[in-house]
């Protein structure tokens, strides 16, 4: 029998049409970005918040159609607060095509991996690394939080201007030495300029066994008029607990590193009245911030902290500059060229060295909440 000739071409055409239909479903390649921060261990709080902020931003961008039609793919790595691991995971992300990495959440990790990014010419955007060691460096490091230099200036200004103290003691964690030691040096120097003598400096390593009580007792033994604690939120809270438990009423000063949720959880009554300087006050209400806060709570069922907010800003900045192409080398140029960005809690600028310029204010804890210090 003859095969019905017109049938075969028809079937073939239908097959091709179906094939092309399926082929056309293939999406454009996504734009890959990375996030690296400490997600486990003692310092995980900032990393988790930062990851959540980035995740929220990426989800929002993708919901709006991605970057010029390309979806954003987020690679998340846990540096476990280990420089070696941080380097390895960052290298892996770059190798997997990450055009930029948002992270790390601590200055020490950021400084540890920066040579890699400079060598690879890939942008590293940190939401929280505030060490002044990274100030004014023309490299591939960008941060959306302001440098600790400004914090120190504001806080020491307050100490010397309002507190009427003549001496001070320091307690700092060397596990984030790049941040704390620079902070300490700078602060101590500034205070010294204002005749505030540094009576005692005690360093501890949070990665090792130690007694909060003993350290607090040791630092208070100096009889300094004030105590400056440079530690993470938990340690800062527990040191405050020990100070008050011992019966000391010395004013307590903190770095912005302490501005975490667990500081309030573990601090109890002991953290009431502490003073720190930072750009972020979660209790403040504002249009943009409210939107971000609502979205964040809806997505993660908890209040955002500043690392979440700045990671969110970092992700949006990155997506903004990726709109003109994903060539990693050109990203910083575009970022510097734009320079002024609309953050979730207000506008801020990034200078030609990639350092954010934000309004630093004095913050205290009142009734279990971070609030701006009414001078």
């Amino acid at each position, binding site marked *: *029998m*003859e095969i*019905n000739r017109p*049938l075969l071409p028809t079937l073939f055409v239908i097959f091709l049409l179906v094939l092309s239909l399926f082929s056309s479903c293939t999406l454009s390649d996504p734009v890959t970005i990375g996030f690296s921060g400490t*997600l*486990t*261990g*003692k310092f*995980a*709080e900032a*990393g*988790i918040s930062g*990851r*959540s902020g980035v995740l929220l931003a990426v989800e929002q961008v993708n919901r709006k159609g991605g970057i010029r039609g390309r979806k954003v793919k987020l690679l*998340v790595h*846990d540096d476990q607060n280990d420089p070696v691991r941080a380097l390895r995971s960052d290298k892996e992300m770059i190798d997997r095509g990450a055009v930029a990495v948002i992270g790390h959440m601590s200055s020490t990790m950021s400084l540890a991996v920066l040579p890699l990014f400079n060598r690879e010419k890939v942008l590293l955007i940190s939401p929280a690394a505030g060490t002044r060691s990274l100030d004014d460096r023309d490299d591939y490091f960008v941060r959306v939080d302001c440098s600790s230099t400004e914090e120190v200036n504001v806080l020491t200004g307050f100490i010397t201007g309002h507190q009427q103290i003549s001496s001070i003691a320091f307690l700092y964690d060397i596990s984030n030495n790049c941040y704390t030691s620079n902070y300490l040096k700078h602060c101590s120097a500034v205070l010294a300029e204002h005749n505030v003598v540094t009576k005692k400096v005690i360093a501890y390593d949070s990665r090792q066994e130690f*007694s*909060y*009580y003993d350290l607090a007792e040791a630092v208070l033994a100096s009889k300094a008029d004030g105590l400056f604690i440079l530690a993470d939120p*938990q340690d800062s809270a*527990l040191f405050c*607990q*020990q100070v*008050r*438990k011992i019966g000391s009423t010395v004013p307590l000063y903190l770095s912005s590193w302490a501005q975490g*949720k*667990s500081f*309030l*959880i*573990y*601090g*109890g*009554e*002991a*953290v*009431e009245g502490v003073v720190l300087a930072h750009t972020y006050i979660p209790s403040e209400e504002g249009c943009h911030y409210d939107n971000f806060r609502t979205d964040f709570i*809806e*997505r*993660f*069922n*908890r209040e955002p902290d500043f690392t979440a907010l700045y990671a969110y800003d970092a992700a949006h900045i990155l997506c903004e500059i990726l709109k003109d192409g994903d060539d990693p080398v050109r990203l910083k140029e575009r970022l510097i060229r734009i320079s002024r960005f609309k953050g979730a809690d207000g506008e801020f600028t990034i200078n030609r060295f990639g350092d954010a310029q934000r309004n630093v204010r004095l913050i205290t*804890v009142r*009734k*279990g*909440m971070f609030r701006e210090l009414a001078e």
Partner: protein
Amino acid sequence: MKKKPTLKQILIISFLFGIVLPAFSFSAFMVVFFSKKMEKEVVGRNFLLTESLAGEIDLFMAEPERIIAHISNSIDSGLVAPKSVDQYLQHTIECYQYFESIQVLDRDGVVAFAAPGSKDIIGNSVLTGSFKNFIRLGDEEKKHYFSPAFYSIFSHKTTMAISYRIGEKVFIGYLNLQFMQRIINRINIVDGDAFVLDKAGIVIAHNNIKGLEGRQYFSEQRIRGNRKSSHPRTYNFIRDGVPFLGCFQYAANGNMIVVLAQPESVIFDSVTVLKYYALFGLIAMLFLVLLFGVGILLIIIRPLNRLVVKTHDVARGDYSIEHERTGYRELETIWKNYEEMIRSVKSREDDLRWTQNYLRSIFNAQDSILVALLENGEIVQFNDAALEYVGKKEEHIKKRYFWDVFPFLKHRKKEILQSIDIRNASFHFDILFTEGESRYFSVNCYPIHFEKQQGALIRIDDVTEGKRQESQLLQMHKMETIGTLAGGFAHDMNNIMTGIMGTLSLMDMQMQAGHSITPQKLKQYVDIMSETGERASDILQQLLSISRGHKVSLSSFNLAEVIKNVVSIFRNTLDKSISLTVDFAKENALVMADKGQIEQVLLNLCVNGAHAMTIMRPDGAKWGGVLGIRLTRSSAQKDPEIEGEGEYWKLEISDTGIGMDHDLMQKIFDPFFTTKKKGEGTGLGLSMVYTIVTKHEGFLKVDSHPGEGTRISLFLPSCVKSESLSTEVEDRNLVYPRGEGLILVIDDEKVMVDIAKDILIGCGYNVITSQSATEGLALYSRKWRTVKAVLLDMSMPEISGRDLFRKMKEINSDVKVLLASGFQKDKRVLELLNEGVKGFVQKPITFTKLAHAIDAVINE
């Protein structure tokens, strides 16, 4: 016209839409249905596992609740001494390792007791600020509250706090979630996740340690929002591009959610395998169905195609039959019937062919030319005689118009076509065709009406020979009639000769007696001789008219003149016992006919009538009777014997002879039938009469009774106007034209030469004569330039007048010849006239006749 689909297309479409599509649809539906059912079962199974896991988590969380409550009651009731509380708590966390720490807070929220005990902890104030909200202290006494997961400052791992208040003491147990992790780890789940979310949606236990990293958050709303599965507590989500299906169940204690998620490819692996098998089965089934369908199509179509091919062969005339094995009964039957039909058709076609050939043979056997025409005159069929006559090939005849093939029918074209158009009855006519040799054709036209087709069959017979024989017979009969009339002629001629001879002898006698003849007497004698001469000339002319064999020449003339002529000839030949009565109308009885033939008819009838009253009477019977000739105008209205329309002249010839009975009357027009004695009749007379009358579209009626006599009525159609009715009357007043010039007279008869010479001289011409053709030709050759005209005798012994004319013409192509002959203007004369002879004068010549004729020739 729209092309109709073939059976093959119909079968393929029917097969595809009637079998393949339903089968495929049903199979696909069944695959989908069972797949869905299986998926539902698999999902249900996963959900059962999740429920089981949630049950275990519930049990796990119930234990710390119970222990905390127990500790709280023990301490609060004083069962444990305050100094032993730290030791008691330490013992408890050692026994119940799902506690990593237990703290007892006083009414200020300060840690009063703790295990493990530490100065870092004891004395800390924790009941303020956000921590208070965090673990919901103070809401209700003796009720357990679970905090969300948070990082333990002791283990630096995720923990949850369970709080229990009695009075002003608050008991807080920090749970070691590693135990929950162990429960989860017991779940052997392939490539999937089993995890527990706290009431805030944070992952607090995960079967994969990486799943615990970073306190991942899954809100219940997100899980519910992603729900696509039909099961109420299952949801779909995509992770790293891989579709997952998760099941969740609430663990009542701690408001936790237990989630079990696996890649769909793993969960539905068995379903996928089943789908593949089903798909394979479906494809195999489709293949088999297609194979089967193609087989069926082959079985159906191939024999049908052969049948179609065979029908084409048969349509082209190939009736060879090869029995086909078709494979199924119906087609076998069709084949058998078809073969039977082919045989039958072949048989009928053979019969038809035989009949056609037979008819063709008959058709061709005809000597007549037979030609079948369409209504437009196109030739569609013809026989061999036609082919032979035309002398051309078939293609030169077929589909051509008959008037092109048979030119002699051209002037009858309109008549033939009209007869086809009006379906007229057949008709006949004779045609003389004089192209080259003159031929007579008898043409019969028979209109044909076959179904809706109209046409005609034309039969053409070359009747030239028949005409000739008929003419000979007629001549024969004429001679016979002349023989019969010879006595009468002799009597007349004797009387005439008596007049001449008597007058001459009288003159001779008077001259011999020496008597002079006075001019008056001489004039009287000349008149007598002239009159008797003219009388003799008339008689001879009439005799010549009857006896000549001439062509049919129709002209209108007065029948009465014919009667007079015949009577004048016939009267003296009648037996004296017969009295003749003639009665005709005074008006001109004009008919369109051949005068000679009508005279012949009348003479025949008169002779027969006379014979019936004389020689045909029985021996001894008295001869005699009355022979009546009567001519009257008649028509259908006046005469019942006339069947058709129109006016007729009725010529009745009656006798009182022996008459005929009825049987005899039936035969009298048969050729060679005669009742006369041998030697008295040829039997052709009445037959000829019948033929002549019918040719003139007339008819005959016979009325006869034995012993009473016979009356034969002859009806001829009346002619309205005389066309050639010109009575040649000799001008006796001797008014003649005169001329001048030299006339050469050539005639072997001296009398003729002398008379002609005298007449021509009398007319003013100069005349030279010759009695020899040879001499005359020589004379002409010498004097042709001065000879104005030549009077030439037609019949001469040496050279005929025709040949002499031709020789003269060679000398002078413009020679003016006046031909003279004792014969009538016959064929030979006509030929010469056609060749260039200027005129003809019939002997005997008279002064006036010759004068006019020579004048006409000279002044042509």
